[in-house]
């Protein structure tokens, strides 16, 4: 048997947004939100994408779903290129990939009851015959931990955590294989976060789901992921197994990120690696290594030559970092 084909392959994905201006709305420049990234996602795993705001992690998710049309590159889902699908093929394929959004207050139409929301999802993809839709909607509600009696309520009658559950139920309605969780728990209280994360984990077991988990919160990511992708300014800087990444972070940016996780022990001495300055503009990113403007170890070479994602000898397979000096940097964890 061949090595199992990845469920999702992202190949040289680029997502540029034009900046219109000047006379007659000519394109003046581009925001390079996602700039040539590639990665695979295998069935059943949870891959997290982390990075600070504006690094392109949400855009990556939206491009995979084709909520934005990618500027270049391929998104292969089960071997089929999503980017070249016609709009009717795309609509059919969409049932396999779903998304859960960050803001539970903006992600449900305020004029629809829970029943409307779920039954509409079933209707769009014709998952179940009309007569059974309500029954299926009730089942879905139960699956995500809401009561059947809540089915005829409007979104404003629910709390943030409950709304997030409705969002999850909507995503589940079409029996997806892959769910992109775009900051799915970031807007929730810590206690509710834990509940939702546990729900997601349980659903993964029950329905053999694959997750792409987009978050800026490394604590959450540590809890849920198998593999982690670290992004900076539209590029992948490091990609690794969770364990490998947390124990042996290679890229200086990853190291700085990890050092910023608060610990539970007030006495523990953690060395923070503060980063200087702000993230440069994705309109005109720095030459060479994009991180060199803020990197404490930056050398002349980093300013000219762009580092490639490479596996390092003494690391396990699949741990790749895009840094010329990865491996030579002082060990941190």
């Amino acid at each position, binding site marked *: 048997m061949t090595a199992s084909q990845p469920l999702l392959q992202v190949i040289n994905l680029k997502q540029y947004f034009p900046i219109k201006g000047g006379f007659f*709305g000519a394109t003046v420049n581009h925001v390079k939100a996602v700039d040539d990234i590639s990665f695979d996602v295998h069935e059943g795993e949870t891959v997290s994408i982390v990075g600070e705001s504006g690094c392109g992690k949400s855009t990556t998710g*939206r491009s995979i*779903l084709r*909520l934005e049309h990618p500027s270049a590159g391929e998104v292969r889902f089960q071997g089929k290129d999503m980017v070249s699908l016609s709009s009717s093929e*795309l*609509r*059919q394929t*969409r*049932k396999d*990939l*779903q*998304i859960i*959004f*960050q*803001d539970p207050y*903006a*992600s*449900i*139409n*305020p*004029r629809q009851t829970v029943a409307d929301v779920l039954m*509409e*999802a079933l209707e*769009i*993809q014709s998952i179940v015959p009309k007569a059974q839709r309500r029954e299926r909607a*009730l089942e879905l509600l139960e699956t995500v931990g809401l009561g*059947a*009696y809540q089915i*005829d*309520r*409007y979104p404003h*009658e629910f709390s943030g955590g409950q709304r997030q559950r409705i*969002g999850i139920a*909507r995503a589940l*309605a*079409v029996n997806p294989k892959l769910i992109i969780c775009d900051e799915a728990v970031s807007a929730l209280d810590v206690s509710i976060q834990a509940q939702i994360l546990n729900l997601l984990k349980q659903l993964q077991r029950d329905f053999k789901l694959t997750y792409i988990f987009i978050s800026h919160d490394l604590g959450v990511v540590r809890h849920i992921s198998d593999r982690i992708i670290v992004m900076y300014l539209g590029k992948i800087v490091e990609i690794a197994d969770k364990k490998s990444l947390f124990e042996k972070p290679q890229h200086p940016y990853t190291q700085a990120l990890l050092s910023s996780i608060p610990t539970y022990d007030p006495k523990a001495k953690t060395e923070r690696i503060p980063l200087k300055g702000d993230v440069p503009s994705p309109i005109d990113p720095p030459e060479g290594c994009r991180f060199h403007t803020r990197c404490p170890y930056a050398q002349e070479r980093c300013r000219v030559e762009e580092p490639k994602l490479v596996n390092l000898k003494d690391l396990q397979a699949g741990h790749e970092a895009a840094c010329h000096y990865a491996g030579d940097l002082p060990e941190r964890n």
Partner: protein
Amino acid sequence: MTGLATQNENDPDKAVISTSNWRLVYRKLKKNKTALWGGYLILLLILVAIVGPYLTTHDPVRVDFSNRLQSPSAEFWLGTDHNGRDIFTRLIHGMQITLIVGFSSVLVGAVIGVPLGILAGFYGGALDSVIMRFIDVLLAFPGILLAIALVSVLGGSIGSVIVAVAVFSIPTFARVVRGSTLTIKKLEYIDAVRALGATDLRIIVKHVLPNILSPIIVQSTLRIAIAILVASALSFLGLGAQPPSPEWGRMLSDGRNYMFDYPHVALFPGLAIVVAVLAFNLFGDGLRDALDPKTKK
């Protein structure tokens, strides 16, 4: 399912379920007394327009020179005009014309303006530019001038007044709707249904339209006031309703000649226009406040 139903009834929160947004709007509207009176006045005007003509004892169009230019009296409540017709009776009969012109012109304007606005806002790009430049052209004419031009082309009649005032309302609707659509289409629930595979038509009809309804309703109410005013102005200028139709603007225009000796001939139609316009304006303003989610408390 029966077990479920009983559970539903026993649920103390069930009352909340039926509290739709409209009930909330009514509650807020009730607090705004002026708007509420505007609303009652509109209902009264509609009622008068429907049953009023059956209750009047005089003929609104029959000329009776023996009673011309009478002052208000027990027989002629608001006096008579230069043709001896009872002004009160004519006002009551004219109510229908005024309301029909107001409502139908705004309806036609909305039916054309709203889809244009949605298309422009939802698709953006070249379509947006084409539609909005067309709207800009309409806006570039002073409204009344555009209406006069249209009526002179179409010929003076109530029908052409409706068309003229409708055309005059299209830009406002398109602009308001485009703006709201731009806001709504960026919300995550639009992305969510798109990710489910919904067609654009479904997204527009089931998700965009219901959520931009409040600005459309407010705009319609306010536009009715303006439509009534413009329609009266057109008739005043002799372009709209033709004699002997008891149109208010027309009556005002007829009364103009007798302003100094018999002011009641022009005064009462003028007041009627003011009352109708005011009612829609007050109600529209109150409705805007009541529908504004920012004033939820």
